[in-house]
């Protein structure tokens, strides 16, 4: 393969990645060379600018044909664009949080590093969305993971941060190993790492042992990747890590990292296992065979997430469980494999992005003010800062899935999928029952904010600019997509071709 061959590829499809990568490198250098005493926040703003640039370039790429570079090691299809947008938007908001992040014991020394490590993590996530090759996907995954490990531990004189990073890295490595173990079998049964080739190769699996092994590989990959989703059974790291990590990182983990996780899960499971023939049912792909397992995992995830969240007294831990629960909801959509699955997952993640990041923005402000993250610290927030309290209330309501907010429409989509075609009564019932359970803890925060008196009424909150931006966007998004969800649906239908090019 010579340089001409390389040049014939449409490398412009990778513009967003290049922007992020380039700016990450630029930030590294800047961090080295600009004087120590200068505020590293400027790097953050550059990062935000880079993300905006990337968003623009992604949007300009939307609507085109599938671009495939080098045997799909890079692949830009509608699916990739749709989710890349989510990742970029999420990361952008997180960066806004990060530039306003002022923890008590300071993070000044590593602020510069934070920004470029953050961008590389984003890069990893973006690569995960747009690749049709196991190796690239894996590298993207690891790039995201390793960056996240470091980000989680970046407050290195903060024991909790260290511990959370340690837990994260150990669990993450085990999960990588398990995923890889599964992938190795998939490779073994097809001799290729290209997803579409794998799919083609698996169309005709004759040997029942092979399809059995594929099933096992499915389980391993799925369980391994459930680490990224923070879904059962690989969910237990989440609370500890969320609690210990710096708040923007927690926000990042709970939103961007999770979106990336779903992207890779969908990509691998649907292409590889969506076409592989299964034992005994030659016409039925393994994925359908495995539906019960996904359903089981989804159900358990929702139950654990919602039920254990009831017992939490730390807001960040509570949100960890809440994010576990939300992963469970999205897994329900995945389980149903209905034709609106892409829509419902994408929309849910979109809604989740706004409401969760908004909530984390409030959490960040409040925890910085009080120096701890107890839910009880929210007491009397309504008295101290009505605006914050009302916004938080709105976001919590959205998280709980009440109508008028994006969270509701997201759930509606999932339900529609669950009952359309072959109905999944049990799973949907679990989902809705646990949703009701979730009212307890979401409204528990409300109780603190609105009903309880503040421990000290002194001190106004001054809300930094970055937080204001996040809050405005989050509230606008949560409400807009709750009232006019068609804006999002139309965008997807008109620009993204219904994600129909996913399998081709």
């Amino acid at each position: 393969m010579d340089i001409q061959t390389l040049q014939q590829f449409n490398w412009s499809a990778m513009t967003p990645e290049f922007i992020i990568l380039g700016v990450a490198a630029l930030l590294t250098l800047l961090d080295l060379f600009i004087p120590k005493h200068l505020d590293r926040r400027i790097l953050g703003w550059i990062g935000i600018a880079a993300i905006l640039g990337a968003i623009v370039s992604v949007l300009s790429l939307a609507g085109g044909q599938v671009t495939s570079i080098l045997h799909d090691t890079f692949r830009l299809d509608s699916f990739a664009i749709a989710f890349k947008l989510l990742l970029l938007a999420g990361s952008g908001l997180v960066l806004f949080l990060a530039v306003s992040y002022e923890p008590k014991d300071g993070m000044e020394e590593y602020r510069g590093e934070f920004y470029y490590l953050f961008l590389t993590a984003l890069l990893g996530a973006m690569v995960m969305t747009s690749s049709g090759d196991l190796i690239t996907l894996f590298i993207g995954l690891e790039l995201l993971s390793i960056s996240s490990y470091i980000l989680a531990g970046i407050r290195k004189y903060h024991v909790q941060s260290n511990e959370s990073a340690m837990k994260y890295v150990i669990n993450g490595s085990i999960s990588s190993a398990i995923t890889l173990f599964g992938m190795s079998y998939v490779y073994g049964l097809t001799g290729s790492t290209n997803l579409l080739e794998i799919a083609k190769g698996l169309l005709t699996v004759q040997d029942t042992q092979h399809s059995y092994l594929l099933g096992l590989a499915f389980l391993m990959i799925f369980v391994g990747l459930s680490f990224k989703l923070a879904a059962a059974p690989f969910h237990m790291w989440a609370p500890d890590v969320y609690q210990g990590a710096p708040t923007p990182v927690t926000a990042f983990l709970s939103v961007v990292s999770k979106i990336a996780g779903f992207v890779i899960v969908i990509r691998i499971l649907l292409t590889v296992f969506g076409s592989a023939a299964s034992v005994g049912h030659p016409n039925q792909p393994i994925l359908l065979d495995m539906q019960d397992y996904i359903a089981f995992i989804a159900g358990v995830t929702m139950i654990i997430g919602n039920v254990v969240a009831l017992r939490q007294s730390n807001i960040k831990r509570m949100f960890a469980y809440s994010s576990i629960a939300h992963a469970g909801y999205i897994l329900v959509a995945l389980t149903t494999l209905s034709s609106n699955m892409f829509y419902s997952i994408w929309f849910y993640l979109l809604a989740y992005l706004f409401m969760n990041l908004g909530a984390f923005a409030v959490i960040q402000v409040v925890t910085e003010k009080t120096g701890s993250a107890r839910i009880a610290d929210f007491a009397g927030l309504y008295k101290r800062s009505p605006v914050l309290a009302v916004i938080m209330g709105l976001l919590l309501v959205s998280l709980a899935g009440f109508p008028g907010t994006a969270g509701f429409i997201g759930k509606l989509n999932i339900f529609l999928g669950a009952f359309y075609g072959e109905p999944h009564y049990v799973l949907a019932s679990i989902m809705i029952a646990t949703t009701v359970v979730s009212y307890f803890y979401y409204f528990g925060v409300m109780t603190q904010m609105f009903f309880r008196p503040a421990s000290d009424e002194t001190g106004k909150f001054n809300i930094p600019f970055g937080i204001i931006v996040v809050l405005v966007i989050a509230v606008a998004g949560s409400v807009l997509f709750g009232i006019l969800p068609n804006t999002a649906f139309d965008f997807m239908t008109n620009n993204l071709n219904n994600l129909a090019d996913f399998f081709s």
Partner: protein
Amino acid sequence: MNLHWILSILVFSPLLGIVVLALLPKTQEKVIKAVGLLATVPALLLALAAYLHFQWGKDLADFAVSVPWIQFRGMGTQEPVFSVYYELGMSGFQMLLVVLTAVVATLSAIAAAKFVKKEWKGYFMLFLLLETGMLGVFTAENLILFFIFFEITLIPTFFLIGKWGYFEREKAAYSFLIYNGLGSAVLLIVIMILFGKTGTTNIDLLTQMMADPNVPLSSDLKLGLLIALLIAFGVKLPIFPLHSWMLKVHVQAPPSVVMIHSGILLKIGAYGLIRFGMGIFPEQFKTLATLIAVLGVINLLYGAFLAFIQTDFKMVLAYSSISHMGIVLIGLAAMNEAGVQGAIFQVVSHGLISALLFFLVGVLYERTDTSLIENLGGMAKGMPIAAGFLLAGALASLGLPGMSGFVSEFMAFLGLFKELPWVAAVGTIGIIMTAAYLLRAVLGMTYGKAHREFTGVLDLKGVEFVPVVVLMLLIVLIGVYPSVLSAPLQTTLETIMLGIGG
């Protein structure tokens, strides 16, 4: 004349009040109260205008509005079908409930201006949101829109109870939230199954489709859906044994909220059962009629017997609500014109009566800091007018002819006696028990030796007369001349009867 926008204005007009309130400073107590009260007026006027519109012989369908709203994508070949419209409409039945809502809301606002002692701004904002939710519930023409408004009522109510209630308010608020959350969860499942199976949530369309044998819903599934609906609305109504939340709410919530809650919110359950349960699944409803009748009688008697031994008047009223909602069930179970009309009458009538009684409870509590029957004994001495209205309210509640309660009770039993005379006969014990517990409670409070000094200006005064008199007049009006309600209902009844095939 194009009247499509009227309903939207009617439903969303309280939101304007919210906006204005949001801009007002917290401390302007008087202005806030005035704005809160005024914001309920447009809805009231429009509702009354709609009533007149009907009475002038014009068609209520003039108000119907239908605008495409959400299209759920990715539903394969049935692409255009899975869409939700923003559609509001008004039948005679809905109009009555809208009028009821608007009236009670305005009166409740007066009560709130009187009884709420703190943070009026927040109170009225939530209150107005609640009103929008309620109005929306009764005008929504498709299930999803209905559900949205239904849920919208939950949140403000939660806060209104939890923040402005009495001692155990938070517990009550949670109880309310979780029970109703579960109820609406079940409801959502039903809605989504219907949506998923048929591709529409328009109520009229669904009604037609369910009558069509080609629709791919097995009768077992329909029965299951109806039972689910019964549970969903049973929580709201409430039906035994799903009632315990409601007791807490009645006791703990501030009186102005209980007026709304008992007057309107509980009625959503009845509305849902009639409109969706009976409307969409008439055949299955017939299958369950006996069960529903028995449930109704259980409700009626259970509430009555328990109300008989309560020491707190609020508890008496709470159990009495359970009991009275039993009559709604009884009427529905009859599945004939008389029964259904009786149920609807009971919905309206109980809305007015309980609003009246709870307003009076609010007055009493404000003056005496108690609602215990024993502590209030002999209050007729100190506050004769209040006592008089209390007694009148109780008489209305126990179904005294000439007041609204009787007409509804009468029709409900009239209906059920035709279909299930034995069940109905057992139910009539409830009529006696109602008299027994209400008189026990009300006489216990008003009559007898006064246990305490009722000195100072205690009796009703000034603006407090407005809700009391208005409600009383309406109660008597309906009781004396029930055609004000029955005339608008006939079309609705015909439709329902057509579905039942009776």
